[in-house]
């Protein structure tokens, strides 16, 4: 993960690099983020943060996160994280015949499984983007409540200030959003 801080004096830039690093660690998104740009203009109180994620991950289907045993009619979920999501999906279809046998094992008839195996249980990129948005909110100063948000497939950029954002600031945000 690369962190680029611009517009601030050297010492203050170093402090902000440490702060951004700590925030990324706190949100556990360091490995998913490619670049973080931060621009600060303390005179006019304008701050822009832009985060680019590494790659867009495909949505996960039931068959991607669990293995089905047709003889026992048991669906074994690989990670406990997906169990509530799968159960909620299955129970929205039918509450009968679907039973959680163990923490990660669900009893489900073959015909229902075959019908639902391609259903999406989790959108990793959506989740990551939510975390990225939260991280940006934490990076930006608390008083900078007026926000101009730009969102693309791999990049989220937020320009913020305590005053109204000028067209110039918005243009700068666009420039940072489209930067390599």
């Amino acid at each position, binding site marked *: 993960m690369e962190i680029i801080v611009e517009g601030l*004096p050297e010492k203050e830039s170093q402090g902000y690099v440490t702060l951004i690093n700590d925030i990324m660690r706190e949100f556990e998104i360091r490995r998913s983020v490619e670049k973080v740009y931060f621009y600060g203009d*303390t005179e006019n109180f304008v701050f822009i943060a832009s985060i680019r994620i590494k790659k867009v991950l495909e949505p996960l289907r039931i068959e991607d996160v669990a293995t089905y045993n047709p003889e026992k009619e048991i669906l074994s979920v690989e990670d406990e994280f997906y169990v509530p999501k799968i159960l909620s999906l299955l129970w929205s279809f039918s509450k009968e015949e679907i039973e959680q046998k163990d923490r990660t094992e669900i009893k489900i008839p073959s015909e229902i499984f075959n019908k639902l195996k391609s259903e999406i249980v989790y959108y990793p990129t959506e989740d990551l983007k939510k975390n990225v948005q939260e991280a940006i909110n*934490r990076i930006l*100063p608390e008083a900078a409540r007026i926000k101009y948000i730009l969102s693309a497939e791999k990049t989220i950029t937020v320009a913020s200030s305590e005053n109204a954002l000028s067209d110039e600031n918005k243009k700068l945000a666009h420039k940072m959003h489209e930067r390599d």
Partner: protein
Amino acid sequence: MFKMALFEGGLHRADELEDLVDDLGGFLIQKNVTQIDITLIMAVPGEDYELIKEKAKELRGKIVEVPLAGSEITIVSPSLGKHHLPHPVCDISEYIRRNGAVTNVMGLARGVGQRINQITAVEKGMIEEADVAVYSLGNFSHCLEKKTHLFMDIEIPVVVLGGPEKFIAEGLDYYVGGIGRRSQRLRQKFDLDIFDIMVSEISKAVEKRRREIEEDPLVIEPIYLKKIIEENVEGIDKIVSPIPVVLNVDGIKVKMPLNQFIEKIKNIEFDGRKIEEYCNIYQSPYSGITILKIFTKSYFESIDKKS
């Protein structure tokens, strides 16, 4: 001259240390029992400090001198948002407590930003109830310049903490750089080094306040008043607060409503006079606790002559 010390050790036989402090003419300022551990903050006569150290060693506890014991410090954060809490404000507070002071953490309602930041009269009043105020501000020197009005009118000594290494403002005597906005615990070696500098600056601020008081000394030492109150006021031991009686440099605070307290001290006398003759007793308009501000000798003598 008293030396302030902090003892950390086991609960077993800790009463022996308390008795020794009492026998030597010292005072127990604070006592916290956590399961089988005990923390004692005490004032010990300087010449007998070695005896206390030996006793602490015998009890296999740790004893350190704490420069801030006997003072109450308020740590002021620009807000109570996640940008400022728990790091670094709580880490600062913890380190100050480890140096013997009683700390309060306070978040301003509108302390953030450059243009929009402000402080209310109520907030100022709450801050001034302590002995020293420590402001934990951000990383940008330009923002610090715009926030000077948050601490300029405060009537107690102020220590400002911020990101920039240097910050000069008119009327600001104590500044410590290197502690700006942080999002991780401050427990690295360089953080602790900065904290040590911070404690030395706060000690200077407390000392300044004590020197101001010494120019016209108090009629009774706060530490004596605390002992009289603790020994004679009924129900002090039943107060749920971890520190029922807080020691200040110019008085004490009792965590009891004024009407109850006044009733209980009616018959307490010290040196032939009632407690209310030694100090101004009033209720805090903010927290509802009772505050006792000890009269200075000159004021005491002037009211004595009148009567």
